């Protein structure tokens, strides 16, 4: 199974400026978050993946196929929801989505059927005959999502999908994204500067800083690793520490009943509770370490721009923080 997106020494220049500089990485997540501050090159990367910009050097691959040279084939498999407004104001919503689906290659009848379905799916079923120019901002965002999914793409590129949405509409949009992700039929690349949105939906993130990759991080693995790192506060240690160590866990005491424990693979939490009961120790507080996406992002932003890593050999694991 090829990676969803592979970047190999990708460099994009617009005019005299280098916007993307020597990007290397392989992304295989079901839902990939594209993070970075404003001007870091997120939209440029999406536009390059769509073939709107030609790389000055290097290459980008989608599903193992090089973007330049396979544009038509790849675009047929991509659904794109741009950041800015993108609609024909005097067309009704359903006609617009049908039109776009037909351009993607769906026969007229199927396009009509799927346009209706897409509008119901995003929750605009009742407004589908209204002209797009009369839609509110939230409705326009949903209509953009509808046109992106109507032709049933394999990869969805969502550029700032929650931009300008009120909290309710934002939740609705994230819910839709998660639903689409969970069908397992489509991969998503979500560009956003809202860390929470990405954290809620994505299992892998790529963080850009000044046109270079600051980090590629598999959030799923990160979450699993976090589940093994515990912070405990106990009433008294009373031999509890030694017992935990005897289970094969790493354990350190910081005084005042504060312990940090790294669980080994075969240990479950109930064993800790059992040990605590045996030693008459009260567990007053138990926290998983929460190395949130915000921490990861801030670490990536605070570190100097790393030198570009060599392109990964095929099948290798992703770069980690």
């Amino acid at each position, binding site marked *: 199974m090829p990676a969803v997106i592979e970047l190999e020494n990708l460099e994009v220049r617009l005019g005299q400026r280098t916007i993307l500089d020597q990007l290397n990485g392989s992304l295989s997540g079901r839902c990939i978050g594209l993070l970075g501050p404003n001007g870091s090159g997120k939209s440029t990367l999406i536009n390059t993946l769509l073939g709107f910009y030609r790389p000055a050097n290097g290459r980008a691959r989608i599903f193992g196929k090089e973007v330049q040279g396979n544009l038509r084939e790849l675009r047929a498999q991509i659904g794109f929801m*741009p950041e800015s407004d993108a609609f*024909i104001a005097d067309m009704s919503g359903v006609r617009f989505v049908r039109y776009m689906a037909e351009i993607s290659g769906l026969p007229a009848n199927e396009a009509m059927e799927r346009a209706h379905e897409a509008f119901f*799916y995003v929750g605009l079923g009742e407004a589908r005959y209204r002209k797009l120019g009369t839609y509110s901002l939230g409705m326009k965002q949903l209509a953009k999502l509808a046109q992106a999914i109507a032709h049933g793409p394999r990869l969805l590129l969502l550029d700032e999908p929650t931009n300008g949405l009120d909290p309710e509409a934002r939740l609705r949009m994230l819910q839709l994204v998660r639903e689409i992700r969970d069908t397992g039929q489509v991969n998503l690349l979500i560009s956003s500067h809202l860390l929470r949105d990405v954290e809620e939906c994505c299992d892998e993130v790529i963080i850009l800083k000044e046109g270079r990759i600051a980090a590629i991080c598999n959030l799923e693995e990160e979450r699993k690793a976090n589940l093994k790192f515990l912070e405990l506060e106990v009433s008294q240690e009373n031999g509890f520490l030694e017992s935990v160590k005897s289970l094969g866990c790493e354990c350190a005491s910081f005084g005042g009943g504060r312990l940090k424990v790294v669980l080994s693979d075969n240990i479950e939490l109930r064993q800790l509770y059992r040990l605590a009961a045996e030693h008459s120790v009260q567990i007053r507080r138990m926290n998983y370490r929460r190395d949130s996406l915000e921490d990861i992002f801030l670490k990536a932003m605070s570190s100097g721009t790393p030198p570009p890593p060599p392109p990964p050999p095929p099948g290798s694991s992703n770069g980690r923080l």
Partner: protein
Amino acid sequence: MAVYKRTYKAYSGALTPAWSRFGVLARYGLKTLFNSRPFTAYAVLCLFPFLFGLLTIYVFHNTAALALVNLRPGQTPIIGNYWFMAFLGIEAWMSFLLTAWGAPGMISRDFANHSIQLYLSRPLSQVEYLLGKVSVLGILLSCTTWIPALILFVVQAQLQGNGWGWANLWLAGSIVVAALLGIALISLLSMALAVWVRWRIAATALMIGTFFLLPAFGGIFDLILRTHWGRLLNFSYVMMVIWSSLFRVPEQQRHIAQFDLIPLWSAWATVFVVCAICLWLLHRRLKAREVERG
């Protein structure tokens, strides 16, 4: 993705052939244009010269009808190259207004809210997008220029008899070539201006200005420099110079109509240069993303 289930489902059905996708743009473009009642009314009005021509040909070949208008056979004008050139000229002007009305909106509405990026993010190239839009004008203008002219040619050949059709077969070719040349110039110019200014009203004004104000500048240029080269800025004149050659208008008649003030090659060169500039402009401006040079 069934409505009642409201779940996402990928599409796995058949796809239309890739080469036919530009036709979707043409189909939607035509439908959108004819959604406007005034536009539809004007498009119907453009067929009036055709109906008048049909009536004229019929009357000229019908003794009883001629008698009704107090004419006898032999007193009627000859239906030949002049007649067809004049007919095409009238239709071309009406078609120009049709284009100035409809064409700018077709492109500017795609640019107004950045929907151009949605077209080009699909399996549709810049050339196919353009082809789709130009075909709208191509179909529309063909229906008001060379198709009615060819019908009139066939009717005339049928009623005239005596091998008139075969003897004047070159005229059919001239009608098609002359009309297609005009359609290409008007379509590309209107598209390029619409892409350039991206505002429907401004594009329409520019289109009209190109055909009415530019000749005035050319005239001033001619007056000041005592030359005729300023006429190259008068695209309708340039077109008539080419048409007079295609319709084999004799030298004497061309001189009387002042169609010989500029050489024929310069007229052809003007049309080609204008079309080339329009194509270049379309290629430069028809992008999903603008790149700021810096």
